[in-house]
C-alpha cells in the first residue's frame, strides 16, 4: 500500500517503554525488598518474579511489532469469547487465589490474571466492531449497543473476580474509543455528567448513612476523611499521603523510603507511586508522569498517522487503557478518588499486567511500522 516497504520503527516510543520498564524494576526492587525479606527471606522475591514476565513481555512486544496486525481484525468474537472464558475459569479448579482475592488462573505453573486479558480483548473486539459498523454506531441505538457490549465482560470481571477497578477500566476503554470514533460531544459529556451526579449523590448518601452496609461505603468514608479511619480503611491511603508529603522536592533518595518498611501494605502494587514520590520527590514523580504523557503523545501521533482506521482504533484503545490506568492510579495514591485497586502500568508489581501491556505496545508498534510516508 505504501510507497515504500514499511520499516518505520517508533524508536522514541520503544525508548520510553524500555525506560519505564527499567525504572519500574528499580523502583519495584527498592519498594519490595524489605517486605520480601521478611515474608520470603529473599529480598529479590518480587523483583525476580517481575523480571521474568517483563523480559517475556519485551520479546512479545517485538514479535508483535513485526507481525501485521490485520489478523486481529478477523477474530473480534474469538478474542471476546476467549477472554470471557478465561474470566469464568477463575471459578474452575484452575482458579488460584492470593491475598484473599480470587483473581488468577494457573496453567502449567504460570498464573494469569484474566482481567488483564479482558482489557486487551476488549480493545481488539471494539476496534473491529467500530470499523465494521461505522454507520450503526453513529445512531443512538448503536451508541448504546457499543457500551452494552462491554457489560457481559464487566459483569464477569466484577462478579467473578470482585475486581471493580478492572471492570471500570474496561468500560472506560470502550467509552473513550467510542468517543473518538463517533460524532458529537453532547451525549458523551451528558453521560459523563450523569455519572458525576450519580457519584455525588452516592457520596452524599454515604456520608449521611455512615458506615453501615456495603464495605465500599467504608472506602468512600475513608476517602472523605482518611484520618478518621486511620487504623482501618483509611490506613493505606493515609500512609500513602504521608509518603508523598514527606518526599519534598527531591525526595529522600532512592531506596531511602521509610513508608515501605511495613507501613504501606503491598506498596509494590497499587501504592508504588507514593514510594516514588517519597524517594525521588516531586521531581521524580513529575518525570514519571511526563514519561507517561510522552508515551501517550507518541501513541496519539501513531493513531493520527495510522495506515488504516482499524490500526488507529487499536492504538486509541491502548492509549485509552494506559491513560485511564495512570490517571486513576495517581488519583488513588493522592486520595483524589476513593481507594480502588488500580496498578500503575509498567511499574507496579504484576506479571500478567506487564506482559499484556507490552503486548498492547507491540500492537501499537506494529501499527506504527505500517505508517507510509
Amino acid at each position, binding site marked *: *500500500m*505504501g*510507497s515504500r516497504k514499511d520499516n518505520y520503527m517508533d524508536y522514541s516510543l520503544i525508548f520510553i517503554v524500555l525506560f519505564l520498564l527499567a525504572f519500574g524494576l528499580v523502583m519495584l526492587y527498592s519498594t519490595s525488598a524489605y517486605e520480601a525479606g521478611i515474608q520470603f527471606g529473599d529480598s529479590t522475591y518480587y523483583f525476580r518474579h517481575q523480571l521474568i514476565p517483563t523480559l517475556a513481555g519485551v520479546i512479545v512486544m517485538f514479535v508483535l511489532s513485526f507481525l501485521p496486525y490485520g489478523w486481529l481484525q478477523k477474530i473480534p468474537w474469538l478474542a471476546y469469547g476467549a477472554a470471557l472464558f478465561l474470566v469464568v475459569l477463575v471459578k474452575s479448579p484452575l482458579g488460584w487465589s492470593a491475598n484473599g482475592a480470587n483473581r488468577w488462573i494457573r496453567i502449567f505453573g504460570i498464573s494469569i490474571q484474566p482481567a488483564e486479558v479482558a482489557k486487551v480483548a476488549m480493545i481488539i473486539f471494539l476496534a473491529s466492531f467500530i*470499523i465494521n459498523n*461505522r454507520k450503526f454506531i453513529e445512531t443512538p441505538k448503536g451508541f448504546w449497543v457499543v457500551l452494552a457490549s462491554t457489560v457481559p465482560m464487566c459483569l464477569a470481571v466484577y462478579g467473578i473476580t470482585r475486581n471493580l477497578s478492572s471492570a471500570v477500566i474496561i468500560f472506560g476503554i470502550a467509552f*473513550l474509543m467510542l*468517543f*473518538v*470514533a463517533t*460524532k458529537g460531544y453532547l451525549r458523551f459529556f451528558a453521560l459523563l455528567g450523569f455519572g458525576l451526579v450519580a457519584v455525588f449523590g452516592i457520596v452524599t448518601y454515604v456520608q449521611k448513612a455512615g458506615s453501615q452496609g456495603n464495605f465500599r461505603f467504608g472506602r468512600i468514608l475513608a476517602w472523605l476523611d482518611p484520618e478518621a479511619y486511620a487504623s482501618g480503611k483509611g490506613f493505606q491511603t493515609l500512609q500513602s*499521603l*504521608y*509518603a*508523598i*508529603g*514527606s*518526599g*519534598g*522536592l527531591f525526595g*529522600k533518595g532512592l531506596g*531511602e523510603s*521509610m*513508608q515501605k*518498611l511495613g*507501613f504501606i501494605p503491598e506498596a509494590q502494587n497499587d501504592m508504588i507511586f507514593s514510594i516514588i*514520590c517519597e524517594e525521588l520527590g*516531586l521531581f521524580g*514523580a*513529575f518525570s514519571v*508522569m511526563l514519561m*507517561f*504523557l510522552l508515551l*501517550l*503523545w507518541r501513541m*496519539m*501521533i501513531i*493513531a*493520527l*498517522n*495510522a*495506515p*488504516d*482506521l*482499524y490500526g*488507529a482504533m487499536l492504538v*486509541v484503545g491502548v*492509549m*485509552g487503557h494506559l*491513560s485511564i490506568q*495512570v*490517571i486513576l492510579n*495517581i*488519583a488513588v495514591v*493522592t486520595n*483524589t478518588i476513593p481507594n480502588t485497586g488500580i496498578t500503575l502500568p509498567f511499574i507496579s508489581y504484576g506479571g500478567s499486567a506487564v506482559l499484556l501491556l507490552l503486548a498492547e505496545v507491540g500492537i501499537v508498534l506494529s501499527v506504527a511500522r505500517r*505508517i*507510509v*510516508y
Partner: protein
Amino acid sequence: MRKEQGNQQRPRVRGTRGNVAQRFTNRMSRKLLLLFALITAAFAGLMVRLVLINRNNGEEYERQVLSQQRYDSTTLPYRRGEIQDAGGTVLAYSEKVYNVILDAKGLLYSEDYLEPTLEALRKCFNFDTAQIRRYISDNPTSQYYTLAKQLTWDEISDFRDIQTVGSNTYDPNVKGIWFEENYIRRYPNGSMACDVIGFTTSDNNGLYGLEEYYNDVLSGTTGREYGYLDEDSNLERTTIPATDGNNLVTTIDGNLQSIVEKYLAKFNEDNKNAARFGNGANNVGCIIMDVHNGDVLAMASYPKFDLNDPRNPENLIGMASVDEKGNRRKGDSIFESGIYITEDMLNEMTSEELYQNYNALWRNFCISDTYEPGSVAKPFTVATGLENGCITGNEVYQCNGYLEVGGWDIKCHNVYGDGPVSVGRGIEISCNVAMMKIGQAIGNDIFAKFQSIFGFGLKTNVDLAGESRTEGLTYTAEQMGPTELATGTFGQGFNVDMIEMISAFCSLINGGYFYEPHVVKRITNSSGATVRNIEPRVLRQTISSSTSEKIVEYCNRVVAGEEGTGKKARPAGYMIGGKTGTAQTIPRGNRQYVVSFMGYAPAKDPQIAIYVVIDRLNNYQQDQAAYACRIARNILTEALPYLNIPMTEELSDQERAELEELRKEAVTPLIAEVTGEDGENAENGEGTGEEETAEAAGGGDLTAAEAEAMGTYEAKWKSFSRDPDTGFYVDPKNGNMIDPDTGAVLGGDTLPEQALVAGNGNNASGLWEPQTP
C-alpha cells in the same frame, strides 16, 4: 470515507498521506486531540495535587512518618548474680523462665495456622484450646496475650522444636506463639539463712538482707534492642546485650548455718506452747563470728520463712503480732509478752495487717532489733576499768545483795548477797554490786567514752540491709547520772543489737582489734573472675592485749568456775568461755526478760565467738539464761568438731553417749578427736598455757589474795532447801525460787522501777525498732 487530511494536524510525521482505504477522519483527529488535551489536563491536575500535598501537609506528614517508626525498645533481661556460701554452695541463683505469648493477629494471618498451632499448644502445654479459641475470636487483632508464665526451658523445649526449622517435629504452620524471656530467683536451700539472704520482688529488686544491701552489685544492666534515626534520618536498629549481675561469695559457712538453724528450730520445738500459745520465744537469734577477721560464719533467727515462698502465712502462726508501726502489740496485762498469731487471727487479718506481720517475720532479728543486753555487758565494764587503770583486777568488793545509788537500792540478782567478790568472781557469778562499784571507780566520762569505743550506739556497718540505728540509745557522759552509770555497768539502761554486741565482744577476746563485721568476702563477675575482695577491716583498737587476756581469763571462769553462771554452755569435750545475760525489759516488773549467752571457743585460744539471744522465752519463768546456754552448747557440740578444733577435755560416759548419738544424726561428720595430752591436762583442771598465771588456770580456783579477802564465805541461799521437781532453791521466807546456777531470784527485779533507758523508752522496751513501714 476517503478524505485528504490537512497537513497541519500531523506535523510531526514525515511523509504524506497515502491512499489508504479507511483513514482517520478530521473529526476523529480533533476528538483524539481533545482526548489528549483532557488527559494532559488530568495529569496537570494530579501534579497540582501532588504539589499541594507537599506544600500544605509536607512538614506534618514528614513528622508523622518519623514518629511512626519503630523506636520502641525491647528490654533484654539480665541475670541477677548468685549468692554463694564460703565454700561455693549456691544459696540463691536466677533461672531463665519463659512466658508464652499469643499473637492472635499473626496466628490468623492464614487459616492454615490456627488448627496446627492450637493442637501443638494442647500437646505441649495442656492448654485449654477452647478458651484460646474463644480469646482469638473475641480479639482477632490482639498481638500480646500471655498464655502462661514462668515456664522452664524443659517445659517449652518441645514446642520450641516444633517452631525450629530443621528439627524432626518442625511444623511451618505453627505460628503466632513466641516466648518472652525472664529470670526468676530461686533459693535451693529454702529457708536456710533466710534473714541473711533476703529475697527479691518479681521485678528483681532485693528485699532484706544481702539481696537488698547488694542490690546494685547483684543487678546487671538490662540490654536493649531499639531503633533510632541516623544523621540521614534512616532508621537503624541496634541490640545492646544485657550484662549479667555480679555474684556474692559470703563468709557464711553453709554447714555451720545449718547446725545453728537446726538447734534454733529444736529450741522452738521444745519450748513452743509451753507457758502460752506460740513459738518457743518471741525471737531467738544466734550469730557465730570468726574473732580474728569479723567474718560472720552463721547468722540465724527463729521464726524463719522459705525464701521461695516468703508470703506463706503459716510461718506467722505463733509469732508475736505487731501493729502498723511494726511495734509488738501488747497484751491486756503487762505480764503478757505479746499477742500471738493464731490461725483464726490470720483469717481475720486485712492485707495491711498481714504485711505488717510479714515485715516482722522477714526482718533480721540479729541486726534489726535492739534490746537491753543485761549482764553480757559486764566484761565490757571490767575491760573499761582495767584498760583505764581505774581498777587493777585485784580488788575485792563486798556484796550485800544491793547497793544504794542515787537514793535507790539497786539489787544484785542475788538479793542475799554474794559476800566478798573479786573482779574475776564478779564476772563468774555475775555480781551487780561489784560491777556498780567498778563503775563508780570508772566514772561517767570514761564509761561513756568506752561505750562508744566498743561501738555501742553506733552502727557496725555490717553489709546487710536493715541494721538498726542505735544512736541515742546509749547515754552520753552528760546525760548519765549515778543511777544510769550503775545500771549501765551490768547492761541495763541502754540498747544494743546482736551484731553490735558480738563485734565488740570479739575485740575483747582477740587482743583488742575491732573488726568491722561483714558477710560478703568476695564479689565475682558472671564468668567467675574476682571483681573485688573484701578484706577484713580493723576499725580500731578497743583495749590492749593484756586487758584482753584478763577478760578471757574471767570469762573462762563463767563456764569453768565452780560458781560460774554459764556452766551449762560447755560442749562435750571442749572448754569455752563466755558470759550469760538476763536482762529486764520495760516496763520494769513485767516479768519479761531477754536472756542470752555470749561466748567463744576454744577457751585458751578463742577462734570463734557465738552469741545466742532469747527474747521472751515461752516459759512461766523467762529469766533463765540456762536456756541460752543450752542452745549455745548444742550448737558448739556439733560445730566445734566440724571446724576441726581439737577436743581438750575428757569426755564423761554420758557425753560420749551423747556424741555417739549426735554422730548418727549430725549434718556434718564430727572429725575432731581428743588428743591424749590435752585430755590429761583437762582432767587435772589445769588446761593452761605456760604464760598463764595460776588464777587463770582451772577457772574456778581463787587467787590467794581473793581467798584471803573473802574468807570462808558460803552463799546464804545455798543453805535453802531445794525444790525436788525443778532443782531450784526455795527461800523459806517468801517462797521465791532461786536459780542454783546463778543464785538469782526467778522473776525478781534488780532494778528500781524508775530506772530509765536511754533514748525512746518505747523503742527500747518494745524491742522492735521498725526500719521499714
